[in-house]
């Protein structure tokens, strides 16, 4: 039986990646395998994270294909694309959330401040404290509002006494724009809050451990327009201190909150550019077809 073209291509890619993207490579450059190239500039002047030749496999299936992308410091970058295009998969690579999926395998290189996050010496718990995550559905712990925020700083040993912890909890809730709504009910369960408040509680929980990067996987898809507007306002404020990567299905949201936008399609990073340019004058036909609703 002859191998199919696809199998050959995958095998070739694997071979190429293993050869050209060793884990400990310090200086990275743009690579272009199989004549497939991302449209637009993938590099930025002050990168917080640098990804090169990233492939993700779920078993035999290749979900992310040779993605190279810089995430700039203090920028909000939006990942858009149709369902199954790999944008969430790629996002989850950035704090190694994919480690929890047994059949998932990541190759290529992802650096945070020039350190390889897939290096075997990296403490994944520490990594996730630096690269926090907010999920699609608000998922507060089944604990009080206070404990939801206090949990992270406590296990990371960030505070010395109760007074410091109290201050940190208050400050985090304040930055998440939630303090006024919860200061009188700190001991009530986190789950007693409304959906939008729960999501802001999760953001407060994420920023309590003082991360450098926040990953947001469709943070507003379960929220009403007003709660969505509050989160968007919050994202804009958080940008001063954090680098934010947001996956969203709402193109209007991507256009509103981000400075750069990346368009994924079937595991390929098709186009990346300034948000204004992507939504008014995209260069790639697939991007154009997706944002104008001509897809499929």
């Amino acid at each position, binding site marked *: 039986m002859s191998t199919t073209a696809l199998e050959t291509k995958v095998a070739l890619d694997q071979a190429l990646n293993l050869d050209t993207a060793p884990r400990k490579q310090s200086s990275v450059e743009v690579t272009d395998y199989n004549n497939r190239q991302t449209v637009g500039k993938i590099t930025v002047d002050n990168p917080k994270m640098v990804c090169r030749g990233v492939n993700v496999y779920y078993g035999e299936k290749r979900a992310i294909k040779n993605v190279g992308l810089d995430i700039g410091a203090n920028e909000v970058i939006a990942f858009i694309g149709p369902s199954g295009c790999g944008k969430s998969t790629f996002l989850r690579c950035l704090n190694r959330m994919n480690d929890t999926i047994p059949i998932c395998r990541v190759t290529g290189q992802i650096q945070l401040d020039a350190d390889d996050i897939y290096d075997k010496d990296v403490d994944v718990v520490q990594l996730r404290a630096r690269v926090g995550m907010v999920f699609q559905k608000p998922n507060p712990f089944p604990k009080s509002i206070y404990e939801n925020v206090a949990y992270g700083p406590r296990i990371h040993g960030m505070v010395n006494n109760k007074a410091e912890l109290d201050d940190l909890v208050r400050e985090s809730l304040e930055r998440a724009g939630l303090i006024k709504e919860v200061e009188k009910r700190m001991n009530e369960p986190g789950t007693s809050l409304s959906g939008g408040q729960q999501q802001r509680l999760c953001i407060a929980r994420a920023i309590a451990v003082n991360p450098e990067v926040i990953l947001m996987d469709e943070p507003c898809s379960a929220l009403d327009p007003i709660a969505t507007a509050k989160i968007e306002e919050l994202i804009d404020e958080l940008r001063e201190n954090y680098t934010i990567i947001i996956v969203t299905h709402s193109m209007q949201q991507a256009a509103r909150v981000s400075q750069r936008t990346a368009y994924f399609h079937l595991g390929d990073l098709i186009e990346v550019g300034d948000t204004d340019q992507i*939504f*008014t004058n995209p260069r790639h036909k697939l991007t154009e077809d997706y944002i*104008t*609703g001509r897809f499929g």
Partner: protein
Amino acid sequence: MAISQDAHTVKQFDVQLANLRNLVLEMGGLVEEQIKRAIQALDDEDITAAREVISRDQIINGLQVKADEDCVSIIALRQPLGSDLRLIMSLSKIVTDLERIGDEAEKIARMTVKIYEGIGSPPSAKLLRDVVPMAKLAQDMLHGCLDALARLDVEKAVEVAQGDDELDQEFQSALRRLITYMMEDPRTIGHAINVIFIVKALERIGDHSKNIAEYIIYLVKGKDVRHVSMDVLVQDALKEE
């Protein structure tokens, strides 16, 4: 990225966009007809025909309002992006310029009425000698940009934009000649001033047509070529991505 010709997932969106484009082209056709009839009325010394041109301007005004309403409705319902967004913005601006061209045609008709309504002697042929050739240039420009809009033809749009210089030069020479006549024979001043208004209107039609050509370049190429030199315009419009 140029305009995608594929259908939208929401078919009603395609229908709305097609309807809007047809409405703008229909308006363009009417405006063309208005100029043609205004010039014809002037040539024929026909006051009745000129008055008809004046009253028909209301139809064009109505189409402008309708087209703008449709643009607002599409923005509100569909939140267009990419080439769809450029199409809506361009059409909305094109409509404004078309309406102004309609106003210029009306202005020519008003001058015609003014010139031939009175009991005095009509202007001599030499006073009016520049009108027909200038009208031909202006009509060609307008026709060219409507053609470019219908076919999304950037090369045609560039051609129209380049044509504006010739019309401007014709206007300057016409002005010089009219001034000479007035100096030679002050009795021609009354008619000459009316003719100046007419050639000025024709010159403005060229300017509006050039604007429309620029919007078409923006629509197709995503490059804003207003207020740039002709070299930059040509370069941006014809550059392959």
